[in-house]
């Protein structure tokens, strides 16, 4: 006993020695704070008193190496008042000796009743059993926060119990607040990371805070303290590290207990932070966003802003501080696809921008979302759909007003439209004449994006039910009468649309708009087929939607009589000699129905052979039918039938292998155009008259002419009195067509005759080419002849020159004198430098021949027709539908515009000098023919020429820069076309005649024709030239310095009659013939006499 008592006192002594904070034991004295004390009680010595000793500072007990002796129970006490100031909570850690570990020890905490001053208010106290094993926790309610509370701990082991001394506490001194909540952080414009948190209960109490943070690189907690408002700034954090931050709090001063640590906050500092990170704004507004460079090596001066990867102009940047920049975005617009813009703040480095991947997001709150609503046919519900998909959470809201939408509205609160699926909602019941204002809202974390509202009136959005109870009947006049019933709702007037087509053939669908009537009469092509009919409806006056198409209605065919006429048909034979049989394919021409009530539903083919076999086959509405023909004679009859019977007027065909009579003498075809072929034939005079003709044709691809079965066979029946026929069909240029004419007699058919289509063009082309070849050959021959015999040519030319003394204008002129010649041709003022032609010079003759292909072609066509119809077909044939005959060969018949004439119809001649070693000869590509003993170039306004230098210039044409007045060179057609206009003006001074008229050339054949003319004509050859203008009445006056003004309106004959027979160089322009006259002379000759 004494040993245990000594042990307890020794323990208490040790505890006392270890105490740091003085603790006043009870006996009515207050306990200090924090209340952490050690209590040891001796349960064994019941007689002793006091049996319990209390000492402050629990840590001394925990560090005790010696366990209590037998019968002694020690408690390490830690008590506090909870954050609500409602309870005193104590944790009691139990220490017993090794021999007492099995003893059941019960501990309880008791708050003693207390009396409150003068009020005499008493409470009954509180008692709590401490639960737990080594550490027992118990809690008793506080009656008052401010007054002193007396507590007592009772310890019992079942056999004996002991109570601690009474301990008096002031609750506020033992307050342990709840840990801070909602710990978060944000960046400030100053570039600081600001922590903030809240408390569970709003309290006027100010706290002190203990903040700790750590990262994986720190390995220990960094601490900092704060006081006052719940918040603190963290500094010195590094970029790119994950930090854990916690905060706790306690009442200021020495009193109070630290709260637990708050929940950890994880902080990751990006290189750049944005303020704000998400911004919600309105369309068209200007917004400012800041960026903080957390990497202190980055400077705000080098900031570059990118809006959705597009650079923002630098004029919109602002430098806030060394590491903070801002940008102001102007007139913000919503994005269609993503719903928000992203903004990057980067560092300029040369031309590049170094960016961190985080960005700020800019949302535009008022977006455009297409909302469409539709009211059902019962007018009870409205379904609205929208097409936005960029928001995680979308809802449709609406406001409703009883007045129409146009009125001033005082709107009620918004209501959500019940969602029906992902992008639609449904409203019912409906207020048909109320104004609904609807919009869509999307939520995005901190903000809401709202679409522009739409204003709708349900009555304008009705989609009626489709019409029903359709019916239809055929009318005798190829029409179909259709009727239907309309839905009862909506009650306003409806318009209807009818669509109908031949069943199973939607490509031929027709749509007819019917106004307000519930019936329609529509035209049809064939009354003997089944039609599919559908109807839909819509509001007649005012907005609304078309209903769906009604269920299809199928017409029925009603016949009242059997068909009278059987189908016309023809056959195609295919021989199989090895099998000794012939395959016959019948081609039916299903005649148009004999009326809407007499339709052919099928065909019946009756066979009869020479051996007497008779059978028949029923077919549907087919177009072909095949069978094998093995007998000598096989007769088929085709009947048309429907449900009421078969036709009575039927055609039959007798197939026989006997020799057929030949009755057609000739048969020819000619393709007029791609849709018409002219056919003609003649019969032998003594042949019997056929009952009809059948023309059969088929097309074969030119590339596979070997395939004789390739073409599809077509046929047509022609009346017996026809000898010509225009076949209207689409003929393809890539195919070759063969036509067969069958004379059909009463019981048999005659010998067929074949013809291939004649397109006309190839033969015409060959003829034109041959003609061109001949002309070219003749030209070459003439050229060689002239080159070899210059002297003979000169002789020939001068022999033909008329005697000028016979001319009236040359009376009295002595041409033997050179001066006379010179004075005669001298230009009054300007052409002095160019010597005139002397009498020793050779003057050549050039005539142009222009052969025109169409004439040749016409002749060919006439020949073809004449061959077949012996000349009568051309007159007897009616014209084709397209009577315009396409030009077989493109040939320019007239000079056309003046430009064309100057550019492409250039021909020229040149003056030859005696002794010229060879002819210099140039020819344009467009020259159709040429034959000349020398070329002569002439302009109607320029006859000047520097003849001594002319030869050189012929070989070396002057450049365009040279002065045409001094070049005197007109051998080059190109030169004329380039400079003649200038020459006209410069040389004439009048500028009257600007058109170019070039001399023509004549072929040798034309020369021969000319030679056949009389002697008088030889002396008065015409001067031929072409005018570019169309109308001879408007032709310009010729301005020839030599001949003076000459009126081109004079006709050619007059010009020839009045023109003086010159043997000196003179240039004249003949009046161009009228278009009609020229057409007759397309192959004529234009001659020029010099």
């Amino acid at each position, binding site marked *: 006993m004494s040993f245990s008592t000594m042990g307890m006192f020794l323990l208490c002594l040790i505890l006392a020695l270890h105490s740091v904070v003085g603790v006043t034991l009870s006996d009515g004295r207050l306990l200090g704070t924090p209340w952490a004390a050690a209590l040891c009680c001796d349960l064994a010595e019941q007689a002793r008193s006091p049996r319990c000793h209390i000492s402050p500072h629990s840590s001394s007990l925990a560090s005790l190496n010696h366990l209590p002796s037998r019968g002694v129970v020690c408690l390490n006490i830690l008590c506090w008042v909870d954050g609500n100031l409602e309870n005193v909570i104590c944790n009691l850690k139990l220490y017993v000796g090794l021999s007492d570990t099995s003893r059941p020890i019960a501990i309880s905490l008791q708050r003693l009743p207390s009396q409150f001053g003068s009020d005499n208010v008493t409470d009954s106290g509180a008692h709590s059993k401490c639960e737990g094993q080594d550490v027992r926790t118990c809690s008793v309610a506080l009656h008052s926060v401010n007054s002193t509370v007396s507590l007592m701990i009772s310890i019992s082991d079942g056999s004996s119990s002991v109570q601690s001394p009474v301990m008096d506490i002031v609750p506020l001194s033992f307050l342990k607040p709840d840990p801070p909540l909602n710990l978060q952080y944000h960046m400030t414009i100053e570039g600081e990371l600001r922590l903030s948190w809240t408390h569970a209960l709003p309290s006027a109490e100010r706290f002190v805070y203990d903040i700790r943070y750590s990262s994986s690189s720190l390995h220990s907690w960094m601490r900092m303290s704060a006081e006052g408002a719940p918040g603190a700034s963290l500094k010195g954090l590094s970029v790119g590290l994950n930090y854990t931050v916690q905060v706790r709090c306690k009442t200021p001063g020495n009193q109070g207990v630290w709260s637990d640590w708050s929940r950890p906050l994880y902080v*990751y500092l990006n290189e750049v932070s944005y303020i704000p990170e998400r911004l919600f704004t309105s369309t068209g507004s200007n917004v400012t966003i800041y960026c903080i460079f957390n990497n202190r090596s980055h400077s705000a001066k080098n900031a570059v802003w990118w809006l959705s990867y597009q650079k923002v102009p630098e004029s919109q940047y602002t430098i806030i501080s060394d590491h903070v920049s801002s940008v102001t975005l102007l007139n913000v617009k919503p994005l269609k*696809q993503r719903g928000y813009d992203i903004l990057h703040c980067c560092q300029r480095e040369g031309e590049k921008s170094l*960016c961190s991947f985080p960005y700020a997001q800019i949302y535009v709150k008022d977006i455009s979302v297409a909302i469409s609503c539709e009211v059902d046919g019962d007018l009870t519900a409205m379904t609205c759909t929208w097409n936005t998909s960029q928001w995680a959470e979308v809802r449709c809201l609406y406001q409703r007003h009883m007045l129409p939408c146009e009125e001033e509205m005082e709107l009620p609160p918004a209501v959500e439209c019940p969602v029906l699926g992902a992008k639609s909602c449904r409203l019912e019941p409906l207020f048909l004449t109320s104004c609904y204002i609807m919009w869509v809202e999307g939520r995005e974390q901190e903000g809401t994006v709202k679409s522009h509202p739409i204003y709708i009136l349900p009555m304008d959005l009705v989609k009626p039910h489709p019409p029903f109870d359709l019916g239809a009947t055929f009318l005798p006049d190829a029409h179909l009468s259709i009727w239907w019933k309309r839905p009862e709702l909506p009650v306003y007037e409806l318009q209807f649309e009818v669509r109908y087509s031949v069943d199973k053939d939607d490509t031929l669908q027709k749509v007819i708009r019917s106004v307000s009537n519930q019936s329609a009469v529509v035209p049809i092509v064939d009354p003997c087929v089944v039609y599919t009919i559908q109807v839909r409806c819509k509001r007649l006056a005012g907005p609304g939607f078309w209903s769906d198409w009604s269920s299809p209605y199928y017409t029925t065919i009603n016949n009242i009589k059997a068909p009278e006429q059987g189908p016309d048909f023809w056959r195609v034979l295919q021989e199989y000699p090895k099998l000794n049989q012939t395959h016959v394919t019948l081609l039916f021409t299903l005649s148009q129905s004999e009326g809407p009530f007499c339709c052919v539903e099928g065909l019946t083919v009756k066979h009869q052979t020479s051996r007497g076999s008779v059978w028949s086959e029923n077919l549907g509405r087919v177009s072909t039918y095949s069978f094998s023909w093995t007998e000598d004679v096989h007769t088929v009859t085709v009947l048309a039938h429907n449900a009421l019977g078969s036709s009575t007027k039927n055609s039959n065909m007798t197939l026989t292998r006997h020799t057929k009579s030949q009755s057609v003498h000739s048969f020819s075809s000619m393709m007029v155009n791609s849709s018409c072929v002219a056919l003609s034939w003649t019969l032998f005079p003594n042949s019997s008259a056929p009952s009809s003709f059948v023309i059969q044709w088929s097309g074969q691809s030119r590339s596979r002419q070997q395939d004789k079965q390739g073409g599809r066979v077509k046929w047509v029946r022609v009346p017996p009195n026809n000898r010509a026929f225009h076949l209207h069909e689409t003929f393809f240029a890539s195919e070759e067509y063969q036509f067969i004419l069958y004379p059909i007699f009463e019981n048999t058919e005659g010998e067929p005759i074949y013809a291939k289509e004649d397109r006309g063009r190839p033969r015409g082309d060959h003829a034109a080419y041959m003609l061109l070849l001949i002309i070219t050959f003749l030209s070459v021959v003439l050229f060689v002849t002239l080159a070899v015999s210059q002297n003979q040519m000169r002789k020939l030319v001068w022999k033909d020159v008329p005697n000028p003394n016979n001319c009236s204008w040359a009376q009295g002129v002595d041409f033997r004198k050179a001066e006379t010649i010179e004075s005669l041709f001298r230009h009054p003022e300007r052409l002095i430098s160019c010597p005139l032609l002397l009498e020793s010079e050779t003057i050549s003759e050039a005539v142009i021949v222009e052969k025109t292909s169409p004439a040749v072609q016409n002749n060919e066509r006439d020949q073809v027709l004449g061959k077949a119809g012996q000349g009568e077909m051309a007159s007897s044939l009616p014209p084709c539908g397209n009577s315009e005959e396409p030009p077989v060969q493109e040939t320019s018949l007239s000079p056309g515009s003046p430009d064309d004439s100057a550019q492409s119809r250039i021909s020229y001649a040149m003056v030859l000098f005696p002794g010229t070693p060879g002819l210099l000869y140039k020819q344009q590509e467009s020259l159709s023919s040429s034959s000349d003993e020398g070329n002569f170039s002439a302009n109607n306004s320029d006859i000047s020429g520097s003849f001594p230098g002319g030869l050189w210039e012929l070989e070396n044409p002057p450049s365009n820069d040279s002065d045409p007045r001094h070049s005197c060179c007109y051998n080059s057609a190109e030169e004329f076309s380039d400079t003649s206009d200038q020459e006209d003006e410069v040389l004439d001074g009048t500028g009257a005649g600007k058109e170019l008229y070039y001399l023509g050339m004549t072929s040798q054949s034309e020369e021969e024709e000319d030679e056949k003319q009389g002697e008088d004509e030889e002396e008065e050859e015409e001067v031929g030239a072409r005018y570019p203008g169309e109308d001879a009445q408007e032709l310009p006056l010729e301005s020839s310095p030599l001949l003076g003004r000459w009126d081109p309106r004079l006709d050619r004959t007059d010009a020839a009659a009045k023109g003086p027979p010159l043997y000196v160089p003179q240039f004249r322009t003949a009046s161009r013939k009228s278009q009609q006259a020229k057409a007759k002379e397309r192959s004529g000759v234009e001659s020029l006499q010099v």
Partner: protein
Amino acid sequence: MSGCVALLCTSLLVLLPLGAGVPLSVETMKSNVKLMAQTTIVRIQKLTEEFRISPNMVFSGLELIPDIAPDKAWEGLSAIAQGLHSFQVVLSHLPPGDGMAQVHADVLSLHGVVRSLAASLGCPLHKPAGDGRLEAFLKTNSTFHVTIGNVALERLRRFLGKLVQNLDQLKSC
């Protein structure tokens, strides 16, 4: 004698297709790789048409997303397979809308074909290791999926372009 020659010829004819069978299979797989890669390139181009990253923007902090240097030679089929695996991890963490899911499916397909090709060539293939850092990064920064997605697609496009160009010359594992 003639019978021996005929037998020899017959044997050669029978063995010829057997010998040609393996290269044909490899060629087919290579063709499939090219086909898939080119298809994915076209898809990426269409996907990034509206928001194409300016060539003047260089992003940092995305080093975990594979980025093949233009002048760097391929390490082999295993490296290609690993790269494709990383790309498919990135794509799987991006919002699937706007066609991203299809690109992800394409990369998965391509990854499968490349692994088959590597296996047929006898290359040792390791089971794709889970890239914990990459996944943690993607989870942490899912807010910034727009730029991460665009950068990843651009790098994937370059990766596939180089794959198409160099596949025929690729001989190492």
